[in-house]
């Protein structure tokens, strides 16, 4: 499966991803030398930069991998994890929780609510997209878009009737913010993202077959309806967990899988882990840039991902052979 050239490309990308992660610990508003750290600097690296790096990598990983899976499941190159309305659902429940002032599980209450909202939305979209014992891609897509609009409207409604304070916190979930990254939210985010990732990787062959078409995947021994369902669960888990970690960060789920197909391969056994690593590295870089360019002010990572991502995406579009999924 892996040829020489591909192996080299993959090692280069893996090395770059690791370098980015290491750099994000040392670079920031101020550079911290790894060789002589003061106590304060150690504290900053361990309790601020490290959890933030872990969260950004986890989120990027979940978004990149679920983008790759979803583009295949829906057979649509425009799909990204947010197209199914999952993130709007998460933002809505997070905002409701904030405005109602809920705090029954302490600091992770709101992330957990966001996670629950994302899962409920996922189930709802799944139920709407279900027909004759399987998912129909078009139905899923339309159900997701429709629900997404509904939730955005409800969110707007909520925002126009509630106080400024609550709203400011709710925007965290709408615009994505890694500055709240904290060790306390990491364990369950890690659990669900890794779980979803393993499921996706385990069904990568089925996903390849699904991209060929339902009849061909059936002929290759897969039941398209069932495979789509399993992959949908994987996407739901990864997206829900990543939204609850740091809100909605756009563009990674859309862009990174296309980059992966362009640079290495469309084979999902390679593409899923590649998109995961690429997504993690890209978000990590975006966050690194966001907190370094005009210190001590921080720019939201989502803005940076779009600023880096959009031009590259447009460049890809100009290349004839990368139009498809």
């Amino acid at each position, binding site marked *: 499966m892996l040829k020489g050239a591909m192996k080299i490309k993959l090692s280069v990308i893996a090395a770059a991803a690791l370098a980015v992660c290491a750099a994000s610990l040392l670079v*920031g508003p101020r550079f911290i030398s790894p060789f002589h750290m003061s106590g*304060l600097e150690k504290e900053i690296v361990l309790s601020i930069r490290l959890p933030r790096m872990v969260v950004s990598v986890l989120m990027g990983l979940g978004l990149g991998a679920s983008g790759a899976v979803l583009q295949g499941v829906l057979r649509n190159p425009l799909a990204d994890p947010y197209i199914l309305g999952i993130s709007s659902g998460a933002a809505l429940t997070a905002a409701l929780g904030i405005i109602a002032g809920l705090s029954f599980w302490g600091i992770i209450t709101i992330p957990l609510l966001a996670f629950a909202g994302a899962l409920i939305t996922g189930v709802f979209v799944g139920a709407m997209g279900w027909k004759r014992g399987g998912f129909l891609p078009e139905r899923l897509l339309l159900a997701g878009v429709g629900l997404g*609009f509904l939730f955005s*409207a409800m969110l707007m409604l909520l*925002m126009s009737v509630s*106080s400024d*304070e609550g709203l*400011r916190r709710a925007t965290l979930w709408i615009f994505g*913010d890694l500055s709240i990254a904290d060790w306390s939210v990491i364990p369950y985010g890690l659990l669900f993202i890794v779980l979803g990732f393993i499921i996706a990787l385990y069904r990568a062959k089925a996903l390849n077959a699904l991209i060929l078409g339902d009849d061909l995947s059936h002929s290759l021994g897969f039941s398209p309806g069932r495979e789509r369902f399993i992959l949908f669960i994987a996407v739901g888990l990864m997206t829900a967990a990543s939204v609850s970690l740091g809100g909605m960060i756009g563009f990674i789920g859309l862009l990174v899988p296309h980059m992966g197909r362009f640079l290495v391969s469309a084979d999902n056994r390679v593409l899923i882990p590649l998109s995961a690593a690429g997504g993690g590295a890209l978000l990590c870089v975006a966050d690194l840039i966001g907190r370094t360019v005009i210190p001590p*002010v921080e720019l939201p990572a989502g803005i940076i991902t779009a600023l880096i991502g959009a031009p590259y995406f447009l460049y890809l579009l100009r290349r004839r052979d990368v139009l498809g999924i």
Partner: protein
Amino acid sequence: MRVKGLCFYPRLSCGRPGFLFGAMKKAISMKLPVNQDSGASTGWRTFSPLRVIPAVLACLLAAFSSSLTIHAHAEAPRRIVSLAPSITEILFATGLGDRVVGVTTFCDYPEEARGKTRIGGMSNPSLEAVVSLRPDMVLFTTDGNPREFEEKLSRMGIRTYVFESLRIPELPGGIRNMGDALGETERFSALAARIEQRIEGLKKTGKGKQHSVLFIVWPEPLIVAGADTAVNDALNLLGARNIAAGAQGRYPKYSLEEIFHQSPDIIFIGKGEGMREISGGLLKRLSHVPAVKYGKVFYVSDRLFRLSPRAIDGVEELAHYLRGEDAVPDGPGNGE
């Protein structure tokens, strides 16, 4: 005296701490096909029946009402609409409260202001609601009202005045100006003089040890008061150093690790509902910063966010905590 919209209104950098939020709200609303919010800012140029109908109705109403109000220009206005909480407070502080016929939904002080007719929010007041109150003067602020709204009202022949003060040193002058516009020079000058006196008094108390201070407007995301804010003025006045004064923007989103580096001795947190719970996570993470370690974290009122006479109370509140710290230099946990 400033009448009608000759001044420049900053569109996005409206000065209240919620400005970031306002911009975000706009950004979200763009995604929705039905877009009431941005319609307000494009005003007449957007030719959509839904927007034109109320505007036409408002025009008719305005024409009707102006035929009833005869030569209001010459006299001191009797029916005033305030489009900002700070203006409402100034009007009540000068005893003009009974002339106020309309306020925004944010005007919550003094208690009597809550009883007035609401004409909408600061960024999205209702033209129809304002016009139907038949005001002979509408007061605007540069700090959050849409500029187009003022132009529309002027075009209908309703007198407007724009309150331009954004900073504490500008407050007395702004109040005097407003008094001139309202034909109540005396009362307003008296208020301005009282404020000047208190500011002078505060300047004297501020001379002591120079504290480095961080004023947190909101803990998650971490928004702090930067330069060009009333909070910064207050800290300067009291001889304290705002560690975020060098950051770009009035209310920047601040880097957490920069707080470690700057290690402020005192942290103020703006009060809001449930702020203690909301800030709990942040303070836990800042536990090694001197202010947190020695219990010098104080929750203060939101008076400094609103440039009214009460802003001076806000400065005095900060002064109280700063002085308290002077009196007991090493004792942890006082004041809270």
